[in-house]
């Protein structure tokens, strides 16, 4: 007996002799010993036995003459009593093929998933809110007040709002005056982060992909991402928080900065002026530092016109125009590459 290319030794010759009924007593002992050596061996024995049977069946399969079988069967068919065709019920029930059931199951699965994902929208539980020029206050189910500025969009779930006070702000600027005395906190869900109310009224402004939060009363937490482990920046009354999506960074401006920032430019016009000169002028006018980092950046020239914008807005416009970054800190603003 030789071991072949399989990892497990199988005594094929002994099995074959056993199946043929020509195994000697000594060989049977060897075979039985092999069978008892491992629990897998009886399975292998049956596998070889089935294979041996299949080889016999194969011989018969190859010798089947279907045409002569049909000729003989025809005679039997002729002897069968004729049935009145009119009495036969027709048509036959349509045959379901396995692939049809698979497709039907897939379609049902898709419909089920679509129903699950859109349940709240289709049942009218998801309330969509749109801001108007009038900025009318919207009373939420917990008596909190939401004011959406023109162009702003928000939504909340009527069904789950009492358990989870979540308002999704999709775009624009919104003011929230949160009703307290509830166990659950009030959360404004944003695209990449959230604002969690700690006890207060506040304003959220979505600027392209960045976020500005101004606290009017109390305090809020502005997060740097989503999820329970998100880093939060606590903002007190009159403080303004910033979230920049590009760097996922959080920063805040103090009341002093804000005071300056709330000032708006009258009419400022710069023609082919170096950036550092513009920033120097802005620093003087708003009494808040506007620093340019990098000599190349300082030397870049541009022509700009401002009318009524805040310092924060001016810095953003400058950054966008030059395609550079900016950040706000306690000391003021920095523009850098």
């Amino acid at each position: 007996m030789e071991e072949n290319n399989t990892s497990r030794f199988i005594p094929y010759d002994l099995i074959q002799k056993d199946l043929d009924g020509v195994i000697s007593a000594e060989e049977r002992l060897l075979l039985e010993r092999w069978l008892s050596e491992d629990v897998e061996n009886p399975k292998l024995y049956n596998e070889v036995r089935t294979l041996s049977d299949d080889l016999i069946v194969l011989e018969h399969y190859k010798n089947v003459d279907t045409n002569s079988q049909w000729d003989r069967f025809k005679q039997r068919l002729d002897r069968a009593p004729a049935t009145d065709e009119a009495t036969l019920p027709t048509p036959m029930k349509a045959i379901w093929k396995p692939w049809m059931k698979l497709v039907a199951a897939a379609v049902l699965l898709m419909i089920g998933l679509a129903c699950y994902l859109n349940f709240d929208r289709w049942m009218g539980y998801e309330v969509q809110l749109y801001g108007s020029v009038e900025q009318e206050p919207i009373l939420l189910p917990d008596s909190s007040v939401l004011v959406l500025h023109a162009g702003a969009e928000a939504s909340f779930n009527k069904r789950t709002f009492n358990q989870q006070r979540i308002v999704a702000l999709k775009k624009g600027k919104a003011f929230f005056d949160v009703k307290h005395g509830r166990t659950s906190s009030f959360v404004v869900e944003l695209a990449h982060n959230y604002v969690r109310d700690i006890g207060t009224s506040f304003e959220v402004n979505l600027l392209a992909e960045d976020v500005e939060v101004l606290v009017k009363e109390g305090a809020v937490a502005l997060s740097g991402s989503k999820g329970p482990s998100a880093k939060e920046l606590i903002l007190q009354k009159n403080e303004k928080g910033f979230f920049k999506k590009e760097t996922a960074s959080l920063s805040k401006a103090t009341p002093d900065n804000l005071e300056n920032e709330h000032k708006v430019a009258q009419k400022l016009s710069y023609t082919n002026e170096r950036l550092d000169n513009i920033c120097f002028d802005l620093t003087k006018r708003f009494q808040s530092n506007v620093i340019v980092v990098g000599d190349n950046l300082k030397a870049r020239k541009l022509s700009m016109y401002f009318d009524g914008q805040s310092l924060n807005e001016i810095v953003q416009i400058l950054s966008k125009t030059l395609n550079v970054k900016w950040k706000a800190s306690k000391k003021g603003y920095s523009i850098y590459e």
Partner: protein
Amino acid sequence: MSNDVELLKKIVHKDRDAFETIYKAYFCKLYTLSFRYLKDEAIAEELTNDVFMMLWENAGKLVINQSLGAYLSRSVINLSLTHLKKNQRLKDRNKNYLKDLNPADDADQTDHATLYESKLLMIESILEELPPQCRKIVLMSKYDKMKQQEIADQLGISIKTVKNHLTIAYDKIRVALAKREVYVLFLIGFLFFSLGLFVQFVII
């Protein structure tokens, strides 16, 4: 397969040509399936023809909820198993098959006859790929029912060589069949994975 539906409709109206087409398409594999259980040519032939006769006579009353191949396979298996139960001698000889199939499982969608036929064809192709001497020894052993010593004597080789050739042949067939099972499982897994991706894509 879709053609089967049309042919069955014609058989309901006693269309002999349609019946002949079905008979010739399925007889060989159904007979082979029956022979697998019974190991008796005459009985396997008779039972297979009984199934076709039943189809011819009752086509209009049959409610087939699976493919025709699966339905006929199940009919042949049930008839063969019923026959085995009545015949103790055959039952003892084939008891290892009886435990594998449940005769009451009429909802089975598997076309056992076609599956078994493909297995036999695969074994045949593996046999053809064996070295000539090896293949010859297997055929002498299985088809001519020759003992290992008789084969050795006729071919003028040692009995050890005969054993080696049988081992090689069995091993090759076993490994190839196992690979086929893995391939089928992989294919099924891949289909379900694709379906999952497709569903996700449609939803998103």
